[in-house]
């Protein structure tokens, strides 16, 4: 029995990690700028499509016709040579194989740029406007982003293969001294969890141990006073928005092998992430992370056959059900502070 529970716990981790990463970004934006960002799921989706774009770029081919060879149909053979191999030689093949993790390199600058442009271009004008209008404008931006992606990449999911070395499963049970093959877990999911742990740890360390992070935290607590001290808090908050976009984008990139991205993947995650943020408590970073993992794991337990036999349909609604209960019992969420968003 303990192994079944442990397995479900593990299964919830990767989804929980994705929720936690998105919710972390949402909370950063809310905590710093005070903006309810419905476009955050779209940033996740854009990150995922950075991976798609990178792979499409890597697999560009030159097609030359070789008249000396004949194809099975008797026509001159077309020789396809990936451009990458022409540039990097054998390294090219490795690069294509590792395209998903490698695309992190382009994702970071792209998402930073998108985030900063978004904040300077539109969201800046909405600090003082009511939350309803913030929701509406970011909702519109999300529609625009996802339709642009649909126009360029088509409506169908685009599968991204994971690196060949990282396919298969890890025998976690054996590591922990259990018999072999009792608890196996796909390697990529494990990597996703570790990756998100590193990112989350990085964000917290950045906020906790750097001067920049200290100023940002001070700004979150009392923006006006920090401004009066002669610190350009707006520029730092803009960078925090960029950082939140990068976190969402990275979450999207690494998730592509687990779920082929399509243009509305962001919306699917956004609704859940909002629930996560609210459950964790608006504006609380540890709350967002904890609630993300909590809900991911609960969802994983709810999709067990035994549980579904007990309460039919529970796997479909568990997250929303938890959200409703927590909101009604603990209005500020799990870790929420007093006085945040209690309109």
């Amino acid at each position, binding site marked *: 029995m303990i192994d079944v529970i442990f397995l479900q716990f593990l299964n919830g981790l990767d989804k929980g990690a994705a929720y936690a990463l998105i919710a972390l970004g949402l909370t950063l934006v809310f905590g710093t700028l005070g903006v309810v960002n419905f476009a955050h799921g779209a940033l996740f989706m854009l990150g995922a499509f950075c991976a798609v774009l990178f792979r499409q770029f890597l697999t560009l081919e030159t097609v030359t016709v070789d008249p000396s060879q004949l194809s099975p149909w008797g026509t001159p053979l077309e020789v396809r040579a990936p451009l990458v191999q022409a540039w990097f030689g054998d390294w090219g093949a490795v690069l294509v194989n590792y395209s998903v993790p490698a695309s992190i390199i382009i994702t970071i600058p792209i998402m930073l740029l998108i985030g900063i442009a978004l904040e300077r271009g539109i969201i800046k*004008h909405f600090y003082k406007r*009511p939350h309803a209008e913030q929701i509406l404008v970011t909702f519109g931006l999300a529609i625009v982003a996802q339709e642009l992606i649909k126009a360029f990449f088509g409506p169908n999911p685009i599968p991204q293969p994971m690196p060949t070395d990282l396919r298969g499963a890890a025998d976690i049970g054996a590591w922990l001294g259990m018999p072999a093959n009792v608890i196996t877990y796909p390697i990529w999911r494990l990597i996703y969890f570790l990756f998100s742990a590193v990112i989350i740890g990085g964000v917290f360390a950045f906020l906790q141990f750097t001067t920049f992070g200290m100023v940002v935290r001070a700004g979150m607590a009392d923006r006006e006073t920090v401004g009066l001290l002669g610190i350009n808090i707006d520029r730092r908050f803009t960078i925090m928005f960029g950082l939140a976009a990068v976190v969402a984008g990275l979450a999207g990139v690494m998730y592509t092998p687990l779920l082929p991205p399509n243009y509305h993947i962001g919306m699917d995650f956004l*609704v859940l992430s909002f*629930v996560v943020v*609210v459950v964790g408590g608006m504006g609380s970073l540890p709350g967002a992370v904890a609630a993300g993992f909590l809900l991911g794991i609960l969802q994983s337990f709810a999709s067990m056959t035994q549980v579904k036999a007990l309460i*039919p349909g529970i796997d479909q609604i568990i997250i929303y059900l938890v959200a*409703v209960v927590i909101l009604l019992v603990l209005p500020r969420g799990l870790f929420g502070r007093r006085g945040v968003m*209690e309109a």
Partner: protein
Amino acid sequence: MGVMSRKDLLLFLGFTVTVLAMPIWLQPFGAAYPDLLQRFMIFGIFAVGFNILFGLTGYLSFGHAAFFGVGSYAAVWSFKLLSLDAIPAMLFAIVVSGAFALAIGYVSLRRSGIYFSILTLAFAQMSYNLAYSVLTPITNGETGLQLTLSDPRHLDAAIGQAAGGQPIPTLLGQSLGGFAGFYFCAGFLILAFFIAQRITGSPFGMMLKGIKSNQTRMNYTGFNTKPYTLAAFVISGMYAGLAGALLAVTDPLAGAERMQWTASGEVVLMTILGGAGTLVGPVIGAWLIKYFENIFSAINEGMLHRFFDFLPDGVDSAFVAVTRKFVGEGWFLTLGLVFVLIVVFLPGGIMEGVRRIAGLFSRSRRAPTVPGQAVRQPQPAE
């Protein structure tokens, strides 16, 4: 109607005439066919109802599509179990969606602001997910709920009216296809508008507006605001159910996708686009969105080529390449852009634009002939 002020009466009459004459004045726009007109009416009702909640009380519900979907299912079940007549179906749908709204509203209204939005969203998503999975015996899952020849229809059977052939909803034996269906829906829209107008002008409506501008102060003055918001929520849920039922009357097939949160988002867009808090704004927003959805999604590449024919060859195809991203399948891109622009520059929606333009022409006095000005509202969402 001695109780109505002259201004209200004029607005109501103007609205009625505009709606009833739609098959005529929409002719030049190529929109005067029954199918589209029916949708104009249905989504008009949906938006008017949504506005009673969002426009008057400021509570932004992101789950109104659930009531719309429940109304559709209830109407189709009434067609299946009771009678093919539209009247019992309407009544049944309104009662069911009202009860549903009462339950959800009772819980959701314990919180306000974004928490309220998330609660309604959570309930709507729960309904949607359940409709697709365990509630399949009631909703027929992905296939959607349809009428069949073997439906019992107890009321029809009781009065010895066995419909032969394909079961189609009727009104007292009259078919509701084509323009008959439009006038049926139009009647409901006018009624819905009338009720909304009366609510807005009533002390109850004033109370709701008071809740919007400062709920705390309302509480301090001794009002218990909860019953008022709950009443607004239920009324607006019933409107949504009515709209859903009308959609089932014109096309007796109910599917769960009507309850998805994108559908809830659509009615929010309609209301904002037209102008939340105004009476005619949401209706205009609904009409515009449905109209452009229809026109834009029908445009294909060939039409664009013909349209840009006058340009030189290379430029011509460049224009086509750019614009075709915005039409046909890409219509939602246009919608999203327009929506962002509206929220950024004209948060009061089209009605605010009308008011501003009218303000340019008559600086000194308010022109009573412009419908948008007959209903002066506080700025939306504040």
